[in-house]
């Protein structure tokens, strides 16, 4: 696959690993946070931790939109649509996320009309094909996904489609990073920045992290070579006592972001005064809601939504793991009561959740390249 395979070349990966070992000062212990769930997943999938020296530690950040969604919002979405005249549409990742009375898939087994879609445009198509039902698209995601939802709402309005609305749970990444930096439990040296969010917002929004908080940020792609190169760039900055924002993912990320995408978002969305994030509590100006001019396509403006706040089960430590304070294996329920098959929290369900990644990828001893080649 072009633009994928070459960034997985084993020899270059080996060299990048070597460079990291050369750059890492043995007297220091580096704590680098990768913000985005997609990076967490890639790190585990390609076994990148095995390539890093002991004193370079990767901390998983809260950039997994499924993981940070409080259970109450899932309950709201499901209770709204658990009636015969509704269709509940969402990405595959949402389907097994537990609400108080079950996950969307479990609701489907009980007779609710639940559909997996791969694009908000698919949900729009569902509405066109089922004029006698109301399709609610349960929208999640950071700024990577919000513009696509925005464009879909714009299209729905121009068509005057009456039986379609969005239950909007889009959140923004900068307030989450601010909350991490403000947290007294965290000591971080630098950030691997979210590559795909940055295709929309560009690299400027991270400048305060370098200038005010004094931490280097490298906006990174998702292939193994991208992530390793980003770590090289961070270690170089740290060695030189620098703190600036760099763009490793130049082939895809424009420094100024995607103006058309930002315009679509500004047209359709405004910031909620505050929004609850699982594990991080209420954060102001951190989530998007649909403007009243598009109110007909906003499930919350069109219908009454219970808005019940649900706290996580007491024993579950989703919050601490989300902030990077605890490693997944340190949560008391990890691998016992909470597994990918019987998840208690969303971090174990989402393919980008650090608990799911740790469970699937980490429970073995590293195998050397030599023995792997001996077949």
């Amino acid at each position: 696959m072009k633009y994928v395979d070459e960034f997985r070349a084993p020899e270059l990966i080996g060299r990048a690993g070597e460079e990291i070992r050369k750059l890492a000062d043995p007297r220091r212990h580096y704590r680098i946070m990768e913000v985005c769930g997609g990076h967490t997943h890639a790190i585990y999938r390609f076994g990148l931790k095995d390539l890093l020296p002991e004193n370079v530690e990767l901390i998983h950040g809260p950039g997994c939109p499924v993981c940070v969604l409080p259970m109450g919002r899932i309950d709201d979405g499901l209770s709204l649509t658990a009636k015969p005249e509704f269709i509940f549409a969402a990405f595959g990742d949402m389907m097994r996320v537990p609400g108080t009375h079950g996950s969307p898939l479990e609701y489907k087994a009980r007779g609710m009309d639940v559909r997996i879609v791969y694009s908000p445009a698919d949900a729009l198509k569902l509405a066109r094909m089922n004029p006698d039902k109301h399709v609610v698209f349960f929208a999640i995601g950071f700024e990577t996904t919000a513009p696509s939802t925005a464009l879909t709402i714009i299209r729905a309005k121009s068509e005057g489609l009456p039986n379609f609305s969005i239950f909007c749970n889009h959140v923004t990444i900068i307030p989450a990073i601010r909350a991490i930096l403000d947290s007294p439990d965290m000591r971080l040296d630098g950030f691997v920045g979210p590559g795909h969010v940055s295709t929309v917002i560009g690299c400027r929004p991270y400048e305060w992290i370098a200038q005010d908080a004094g931490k280097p940020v490298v906006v990174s792609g998702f292939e193994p070579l991208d992530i390793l190169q980003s770590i090289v760039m961070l270690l170089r900055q740290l060695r030189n006592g620098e703190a600036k924002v760099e763009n490793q993912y130049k082939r895809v990320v424009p420094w100024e972001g995607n103006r058309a995408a930002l315009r679509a978002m500004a047209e359709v969305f405004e910031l909620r005064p505050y929004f609850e994030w699982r594990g991080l509590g209420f954060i102001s100006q951190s989530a998007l809601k649909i403007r009243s001019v598009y109110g007909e396509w906003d499930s919350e403006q069109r219908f009454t939504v219970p808005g019940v706040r649900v706290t996580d089960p007491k024993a579950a430590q989703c919050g601490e793991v989300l902030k990077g304070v605890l490693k997944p294996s340190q949560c008391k329920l990890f691998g016992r009561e909470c597994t990918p098959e019987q998840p208690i929290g969303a971090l174990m369900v989402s393919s980008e959740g650090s608990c799911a990644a740790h469970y699937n990828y980490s429970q073995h001893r590293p195998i050397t390249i030599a023995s792997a080649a001996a077949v």
Partner: protein
Amino acid sequence: MCLAIPGKIVEIDAHNAQLAVVDVVGVRRKVDLGLLQEESVHPGDWVLIHVGFAMSKISETDAADQMRTLMILGESEAAMQEVQGYGLENENDDSLGRGPVS
């Protein structure tokens, strides 16, 4: 699903210039070009696809530059300095707006 993957534009829809058919190693999918209004997109271009929408054009030049940088990793500091002099790692050198505006 927050996957974004590269795909090649095969054809622009004759009836709707906002839609294109994209190829990902032999699998074809219709993709919405509505977020790429500031850039012109043609068959043969590569784009990054996320939830059925094209998010960004992929720069062949930047990808090649990056591979060059990666290939010289592990060589001497002197070689690195020399390469930096050529501007391959220079954020101000960019054709598609990939570095900071100075």
